[in-house]
Each structure stands twice: as C-alpha cells, then as structure tokens.
C-alpha cells in the first residue's frame, strides 16, 4: 500500500469514526458506521487480507449495520435526547481520559515495536485458499466453537426479543 492511499483511507476512517460519535441523529451515526466499515475493508484489501475484506463487507456492512438500522427504525428513538449536552463536565472528562489513553497507547507503540519495518506481504497471502487451510486444520476447534456460539447467540436473541405472552 502506498503512503498516499494509506493517508486517504486513514483520513476517511477517522472522519467517519468521528461522524458516528458526533451525529445527533442515530441514523446518520449508523450510516457513518457503514462508511467506516467499508473504509476498513479497503484497508484489509490493501493489507493483502482479501478474504477478511470480503467478510468485513458482508458481515459488518451487510449484516451488523443493517441490524442497527433495523432496530433504530423499529424503536423510533432516532434523535437522541440532548442529555449529553447538559453535562459538559462529563464530556470534558471523557475527552481528557481519551487523550490520556491515546498517549499511553502511543508510548507503548513507540517503545515496544520495531517501527519503520516494511512488511513483505505476498499479494495472495490472505486469499480464501490460504486462510481456509489453517482454519480447517490447526484452528478447527475455535472454528467449531464459533458456530456453537452463533447458535447460542441466535437463540439468545430470539428469547430476549420475543414478546412476552399473556398468562
């Protein structure tokens, strides 16, 4: 990935992330989240993880954001009450905490990592075939457990959202 394309993608990723945070309307937040996930998918492609990029588009952009929009439309609370406006102290405190957290992360990043090393990255490193081979051999157990988890999550979602029957 060239530096120019990285900076363009990073700019859009940060812009859409801030859009999720700052939108007054939850629908706009969800649409910003969609754009954010698509930008991250492009970054995955650039990092030679094609399979994960496709999975990102299908699962995050296709399923999760649609589920969010579905719930926002269903419960109708699209415009948020302006309660977070009333507490500027909490907002400032959260921003300061976030800045400190970012500072800590940066310190760890700059102290602990061999910075500047450019990855070799074969172009087909993340193809479906390359990812499937370890997924179905070395990592078969986590893969199967993920399917059990999906089943449990599906049942949990149905039970929680099911309307209570009148006794």
């Amino acid at each position, binding site marked *: 990935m060239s530096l120019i394309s990285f900076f363009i993608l990073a700019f859009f990723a940060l812009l859409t992330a801030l859009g999720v*945070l700052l939108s007054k309307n939850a629908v706009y937040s969800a649409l910003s989240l969609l754009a954010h996930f698509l930008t991250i998918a492009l970054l995955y492609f650039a990092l030679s993880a094609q399979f994960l990029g496709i999975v990102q588009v299908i699962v995050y952009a296709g399923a*999760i954001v649609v589920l969010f929009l579905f719930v926002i439309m269903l419960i109708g609370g699209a415009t948020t009450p302006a309660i977070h406006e009333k507490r500027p102290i909490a907002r400032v405190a959260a921003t300061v905490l976030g800045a400190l957290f970012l500072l800590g992360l940066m310190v760890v990043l700059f102290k602990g990592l061999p910075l500047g090393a450019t990855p070799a990255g074969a172009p087909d490193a993340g193809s479906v075939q390359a990812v499937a081979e370890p997924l179905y051999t070395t990592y078969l157990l986590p893969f199967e457990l993920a399917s059990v988890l999906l089943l449990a999550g599906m049942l949990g979602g149905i039970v929680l959202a099911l309307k209570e029957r009148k006794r």
Partner: protein
Amino acid sequence: MMTPTSFILILSAIIFTIGAVGVLVRRNALIIFMSVEMMLNSVNLTLVAVANQWGNLTGQIFAFIVIAVAAVEVAVGLAIIIAIVRHKDTTNIDEVHLLKG
C-alpha cells in the same frame, strides 16, 4: 513507498480511542453499541496489520473469529436494547438503573 505497519497501528489506536470516548460521552445505548463495534474493528485492523507484517495467517484467523463473536454480540445486544425499550421506553442509559437498590 510502502506504508510501515506502525502507521496502521497508530491509526487503529486512534480509532480505538475515538470508540472509547464515544462510549464515555454518548448516552444513547445504540450509539454506545456502535462505538463498541468500532473498537472491536480497530483491534481487528491491528491483528491484520501485524499478520501482514510477519507474513503469518494466525492474526487473520483471530480477526475472523473476532468478527464471528462480534456478530453474535450485536444480535444479543440489540435484543437486550429492544427488551429494555419495551420495558422502560427509553434508549438513554442514564434512565436505566434496574440494578440500583
């Protein structure tokens, strides 16, 4: 010129922080949930970047499993939000204090 892996790690650290601040600042349960998804996604970006750096697929498989877990989490979490809305008719988490004595 190729992008160093550290740039991507810094980007994902910034996105993670934006998500964390979103969890702290916003009071709408749905937006908080979106911020949590953003944090999960930034960690995935870290895993993929490091997998690319070392030419090792384990990070990508970890990210794949994280995506599966995130999908389950969204399904259950949104069901909980729907149950709360049915119970209290609000998505504002300051008004939901059922565990308060």
